[in-house]
């Protein structure tokens, strides 16, 4: 290609990444505004405006394709989750967490979203690496944003763990590059390599970076500590947006590797998913800190999401998209409740004893959210688990693979076990008596927001039209 053609291709491609460009530009603007504006309200307004503007620039789902010489592949899932990210990102401004340095805080949140957005479409090893690192660096910093002693401790631990994982992933990427001779995931042909042992090592290490982002075993260990000390609104974002993006990326990479022909990798993925569910669920059992408990629950949810990726074809993608979307909403709501409680230093379930005397209504809302996290009717949590299990069962009947059966059994058991820890919260709120005085926790505004949030969970159960529409739009993806 001559230079002129290259330039025109780049300019043409730029129109496809308007979403990401607005996010990055907006985040820089926010940083600059921080020099002159002092009020945190300004930062919140600019943050929301940037996200809304970005949302309007998402290209239509009819306009999909490959851009920047193959480095970015804009697919149906990319389109969907760009919208979802900007939509979910807006809600954290309602969280009551007080922050020092609000401008820097929202700058970092936008950086996380921008990095995740790039992960949605990246299919060039360098872009993948850059996107993951952009998200990671911003996450390291966000972990510190409570500016307490233990925040810094969690921050450096998170960084060392993440840094090691990403260094290993980079080494894996270099091996993949060496054996396939290309950095473009779409051009790699793993079947051509004669002796794939070293290549497989590289592949495994590289996939590790994604496992780290989506908190799958054995890269999940940073999750509980980080979630516990980071500001709750940041945790709400971190537990949803990079995770979904990581799964979309993992999906693309597994697709390129053709995981169903590489049986060993397939088994590894299934085993990782099962181990994640088991460890997330068992770990949550003994937690008394609500934030830590939901963090372990989030690990288990990652295992469920991985299950959706194992199902080939349209059903799998639809199950994944649903689960991811609904999981994102449920988690945002759950962490909103947590942030309200955290505002009053009520993070241990024991502190919640007898709360129903003053906060019966809010306690009821929390109960609904916990029911959604378990996955029982009448909440959207049930809808997605039901759909996922049906899809898994359907696929098991076509392949009759004992690994899938095992996965199903583990997942169902996990739902049963999760009853024990999630219901601990309503148990303490409603059935335990407290020794001391119980003060009220919420103000009317918070109750209204919590009500709206909770109603969404119920409404999506009763009328899953939105989910069905999404399914219609992403049907063209094939495994």
């Amino acid at each position, binding site marked *: 290609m001559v230079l002129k053609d290259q330039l025109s291709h780049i300019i043409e491609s730029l129109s496809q990444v308007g979403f990401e460009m607005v996010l990055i530009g907006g985040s820089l603007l926010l940083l600059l505004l921080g020099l002159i504006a002092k009020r945190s309200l300004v930062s919140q307004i600019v943050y929301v405006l940037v996200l809304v503007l970005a949302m309007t620039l998402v290209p239509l789902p009819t306009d999909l394709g490959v851009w920047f010489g193959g480095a970015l592949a804009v697919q149906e899932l990319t389109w969907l989750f760009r919208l979802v990210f900007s939509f979910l990102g807006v809600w954290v401004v309602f969280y009551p967490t007080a922050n020092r340095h609000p401008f820097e805080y929202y700058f970092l949140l936008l950086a996380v979203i921008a990095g995740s957005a790039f992960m949605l479409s990246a299919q060039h090893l360098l872009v993948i690496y850059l996107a993951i690192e952009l998200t990671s660096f911003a996450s390291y910093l966000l972990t510190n944003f409570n500016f307490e002693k233990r925040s810094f401790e969690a921050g450096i631990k998170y960084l060392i763990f993440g840094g090691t994982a990403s260094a290993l992933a980079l080494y894996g990427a270099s091996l993949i590059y060496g054996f396939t001779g290309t950095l473009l995931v779409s051009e790699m042909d793993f079947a051509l390599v004669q002796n794939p042992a070293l290549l497989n090592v590289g592949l495994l290490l590289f996939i590790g970076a994604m496992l780290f982002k989506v908190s799958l075993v054995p890269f999940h260990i940073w999750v509980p500590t980080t979630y516990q000390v980071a500001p709750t609104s940041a945790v709400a974002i971190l537990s949803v947006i990079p995770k979904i993006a990581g799964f979309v990326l993992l999906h693309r990479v597994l697709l390129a590797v053709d995981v169903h022909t590489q049986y060993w990798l397939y088994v590894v993925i299934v085993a990782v998913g099962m181990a994640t569910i088991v460890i997330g669920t068992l770990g949550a059992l003994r937690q008394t800190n609500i934030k830590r408990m939901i963090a372990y629950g989030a690990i288990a949810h990652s295992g469920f999401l991985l299950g959706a990726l194992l199902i080939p074809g349209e059903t799998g993608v639809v199950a994944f998209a649903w689960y991811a979307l609904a999981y994102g909403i449920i988690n945002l709501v759950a962490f909103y409740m947590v942030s309200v409680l955290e505002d009053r230093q009520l993070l241990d379930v024991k502190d919640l004893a007898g709360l129903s005397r003053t906060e019966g209504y809010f306690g009821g809302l929390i109960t609904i959210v916990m029911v959604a996290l378990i996955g029982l009717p009448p909440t959207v949590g049930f809808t997605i688990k039901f*759909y996922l299990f049906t899809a898994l069962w359907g696929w098991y009947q076509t392949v009759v693979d004992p690994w899938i059966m095992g996965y199903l059994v583990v997942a169902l058991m996990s739902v049963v076990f999760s009853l024990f820890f999630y219901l601990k919260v309503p148990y303490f709120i409603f059935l335990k008596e407290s020794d001391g005085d119980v003060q009220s926790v919420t103000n009317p505004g918070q109750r209204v927001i919590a009500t709206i949030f909770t109603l969404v969970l119920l409404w999506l159960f009763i009328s899953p039209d939105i989910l069905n529409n999404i399914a219609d739009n992403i049907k063209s993806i094939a495994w």
Partner: protein
Amino acid sequence: MSNPAIHLTLVLLLPLAGGILTYLSGQSMVRRTALVGMVPGLIAAGMLLFMSNDSSITIRFDWLPGHSLGWQVDHVSAVLIALVYFISFLVHLFSLHYLQHDPSIHRYFAKLGFFTTSMLGLLAADHLLLVFVFWELVGFSSYLLIGFWFSQEDKAKSAREAFMVNRVADAGLLIGVILMVMVLDQPFLSELSAVSSSPLVHLAGIGLLIGALGKSAQFPFFGWLPKAMAGPTPVSALIHAATMVAAGVYLLFRVVPVLSPLVMGLAAILGAVTALMAAIAALTQHDIKKVLAYSTISQLGYMVLGVGVGAYQASLFHLWTHAFFKAGLFMAAGAVIHYFHELRHDDHEFDGQDMRNMGGLRKVLPVTHLVYLLCGLALSGLPFFSGFLSKEGILSGAWIWASQTGLWAYVVTDMAFITAFLTPLYVGRQILLVFYGEPRTVVERLQGMEPLWKVKLPLLLLAIASVWVFSAINPFNPTGWWLNAYLFSNDIFRAPEGFDYIEKLTFGLSVVLSAGGLLVSYWYFRPSRSQAYSNAGVPQTWYGRLSYRGWFMAEVYAALAKVYDALVMLSAWFDRKVIDKAVNAVGVASVVLSKAAAIFDREIIDGLVNLMAWLANLVGRLFTGIQSGKVQHQLVWMMVVLLAILLWFQF
């Protein structure tokens, strides 16, 4: 929405809407608003009977792709919806009298409306998931009603216990429903078809059976129903006699096509065992409501037995007749309790439910006495009453089933017949102790104890319905129910050729048993002897205590809870002793690792041993999900898993 859909929505939601209206308009308006939802609802339910006459009302709507939910009202549902409406309406009326002085009566009516709507939804639901949702709503609303006087610690506790026992059984139901919907692909009650026997089918059937046993208070779950008597008595009449406890029988009746012979046999055995156990427990109770509670359990046992032996039409018939006479008994008992509350309302030590304080009440509560007598005779299964007809069908069905099944099955039948003798015994005992003889406490006639509309009308309606003509023209023909043609197109369980003698024998035997039971009870509790009863204490013999304490079900549950607690303690101990040690050991081991890098050549053997211990600990931690806060331990952990994966697929 089509016309029937709108109509059905109205039928289902009117009680709830009325309840909410009553709640919002407050306590002072209750007399005017209490029936706002029920009267039009009753009319609408009557119209539903006609609408579903020609063909069932079926409504389906899409839920998830490939899944749709649905409602269906066929003849059985329509009749039962009308029944629930009728009883609920009478209970609404009676509650106006019973709770007239309660300051939160408007809250009561809201809960009552909520319950009625949940129950109706359960009857109209066709998809098993909807059935499950309404099943839970019914359980939850009944919890609210049982715990209506939640400020009294013991009543709130009873409500919680009843709720929890039900939840245990609901877990079984959930398994059954999930298997039915996802694996057997039979989500609609109206479209069930027989499936070939397989372990999964057995499992699904057993799951559904467990759910039904829980809701219908059958062994081993029956401990919750006596506890549920903590609620207001009209609530007991509605929930614990006529409607909610019958839901289990209704579910079994619906899923009969998919029940395997194994599950049917189990149902028959458990039903008969429950019938006998509860009848024995009813013999020694002092609390007027507890007798009725155990008798309800016993009668429900009959119904489950009927389904189990294949005479499910007779079970539904018994459900129908039982709803009337048991609701009548409970409401009459409520009238008695209310009378004592009014009489001795300043004496808080006095127990207005204890039969030791009663006797001779026929003079002060004549209508209540008459109603109690009629309904009690129906319950004891005397000819010319409805209970005789329906029980007859179940008993002969059980006998025929036993003659076709095997010798052991006669044990089941025998238990049913023994129960048929015990039933008149405790009924007679109760009627004699409450209404006859000399009063054992001072009683006097009070004004306004039996007002016409709120007490006499519901009581007399229910009592009259217990007479045979309102069930069948011929007082001796158990298959003569006038609804048979409408419900089952006359396709009912009949004795096969050559077994006619069983029907005749059953007939003779039950007449003898019911009359004999009444005579025996008269011998023991005749007015001249009942005076001494006021000093009766708690039975001291082991069999007496077994009966009085309801087979120690509450203690069994408590023991199970203790076992669970012990398991929790054990796991905590394990956590402390083993896992914490393991965590410490990992800390030690990683120090060893860093030293090993320097002294590897000197102490290879030692290093290997330590490495093994360290690996073992790591595996232990892998399955416990415990993590130390040390980032390097976490990294070691991660690397070991990665290496394990690499080694695994490379070799």
